[in-house]
């Protein structure tokens, strides 16, 4: 009896951990999708937005002692500006933008951001205080950190904001229109370049939020972007590229599988699990578990 209880609590604990990690992957994947929908490219600097969000938040809260709310807003704005600058300076000026060229550019930008981040924040990892204390709460025998609840709540808020923005605002509708049919959108008077810029701004913002909320738990350092980006990419592919609600489900699923794998197989294989899943999805069902293969055929890759 005790044994089954213990198993249940273990599973619950892994689920909580998994959803927590998965929430971050989900947000990174949403960022990927926004830029993918606007441009058809994968922005490999997406993980760097997360890192910048985390590190900036550390500096504002720990070094400047600003309040969490104020730092949160400033950090998100800062990373949004970085996203806009990235688009204006490296994506927009490209004379003949092909998917491959733009992707290589985003890789270059990710390396640059990583280098600059290392110069400013050093190589060490940075601790940040939790939003509201570290006293764990009990949840059916498992423990849950207040920060984890913040992560769940903020993911929920981001998803709701995303849905409202894309379905109920004109700007959101225009972005969707531009993603579906760029020529028709231009003809309807939509400045497609502005939409691309906006997509970079928004996905930088979501990346920053992900970085901010996870930093108290994982302790951010300059080099984390690649792995976070890769996991987020896995989630985006699993959910069907371009399908952001799919990405949320897939991100959480990926996090849970990772946590279960780490718990029951070996924590050494944790990163491998996500990547093996990514490979299998690409081999077997490249349109993702939630994407339609019909939509996939229309995409450039």
């Amino acid at each position: 009896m005790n044994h089954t209880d213990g198993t249940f609590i273990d599973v619950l604990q892994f689920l909580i951990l998994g959803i927590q990690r998965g929430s971050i992957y989900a947000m990174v994947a949403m960022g990927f999708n926004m830029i993918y929908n606007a441009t058809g490219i994968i922005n490999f600097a997406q993980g760097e937005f997360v890192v910048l969000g985390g590190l900036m938040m550390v500096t504002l809260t720990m070094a400047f002692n600003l309040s969490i709310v104020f730092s949160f807003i400033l950090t998100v704005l800062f990373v949004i500006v970085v996203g806009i600058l990235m688009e204006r300076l490296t994506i927009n000026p490209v004379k003949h933008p092909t998917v491959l060229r733009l992707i290589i550019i985003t890789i270059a930008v990710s390396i640059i951001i990583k280098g600059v981040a290392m110069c400013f924040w050093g190589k060490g990892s940075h601790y940040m205080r939790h939003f509201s204390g570290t006293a764990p709460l009990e949840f059916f025998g498992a423990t849950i950190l207040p920060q984890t609840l913040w992560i769940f709540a903020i993911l929920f808020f981001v998803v709701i904001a995303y849905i409202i923005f894309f379905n109920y605002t004109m700007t959101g509708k225009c972005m969707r229109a531009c993603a579906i049919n760029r020529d028709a959108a231009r003809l309807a008077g939509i400045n497609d370049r502005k939409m691309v810029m906006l997509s970079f701004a928004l996905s930088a913002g979501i990346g920053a939020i992900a970085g901010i909320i996870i930093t108290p738990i994982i302790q951010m350092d300059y080099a984390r972007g690649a792995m976070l980006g890769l996991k987020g990419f896995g989630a985006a592919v699993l959910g069907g590229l371009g399908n952001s609600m799919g990405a949320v489900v897939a991100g959480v699923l990926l996090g849970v599988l990772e946590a279960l794998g780490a718990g029951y197989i070996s924590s050494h294989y944790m990163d491998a699990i996500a990547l093996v899943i990514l490979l299998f999805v690409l081999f077997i069902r490249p349109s993702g578990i939630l994407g339609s293969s019909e939509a996939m055929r229309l995409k450039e890759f």
Partner: protein
Amino acid sequence: MSNSILELQLLRKNFGGVVAVSDLSLDIEKGSITSLIGPNGAGKTTIFNLVTGFLHPSSGHIRFAGRVLNKIKPHTIAAIGIGRTFQNVQIFPKMSVIENIMVGRHLRSRAGIFYSSILPPFLRNEEKLIRAAAEKQLTFLELEQYAHVPAGGLPLGNQRMLEIARALAIEPKLLLLDEPASGLNARETIAMGELIEKIKQMNITVLLVEHDMELVMDISDHVAVINFGRLIAEGSPAEIQENDDVIAAYLGE
């Protein structure tokens, strides 16, 4: 001054060594329905792409209401007042019918794009105004019962109507219609002709590319015939039907 809304002056477009449009000059009279006809590959769609800014001319000028359009981007041209539909319907299939029109309508809303993204939707009625205008447009085109259906699910005839509705939503002064009747059955074609005449009555100049000669001769005020990128004849429908060059171009010499 002439009463023309669109003037093409010695317009030329080369693709590598191929001359798609060759020193073509044409005036489109304000308030008219003018048709561009000619065999496939004559350069009609290229002219549309030049006028709407998807292509830029190799030489020559495009003047719209006195303004030179040579290097202007498509979204700006839409804002200036030129609407267009495509030969292959270009709608937003995954969006609902009314959303398709609302997207066309956004240009004419007062709020700018950044203003509208900062203010949350419940604090402003911009979206409501746009929605109301779009609903009117739907009623005009008798599509109102499809308002919330995904546009991709409509039959082709209705998709064409929707594309025209979206083009009308930008309140154009000039509307370019690229083969609006292709793929339509006889009844739909007649309805399309009636719609085009209604659009003319709304004080919108129409430039039409169409292969259905019955439709062209029926509704056009003016017909221009193009072959190999050159203007070979222009005049009233009656004049064109008698023109020997035109008959030669269509039947082959």
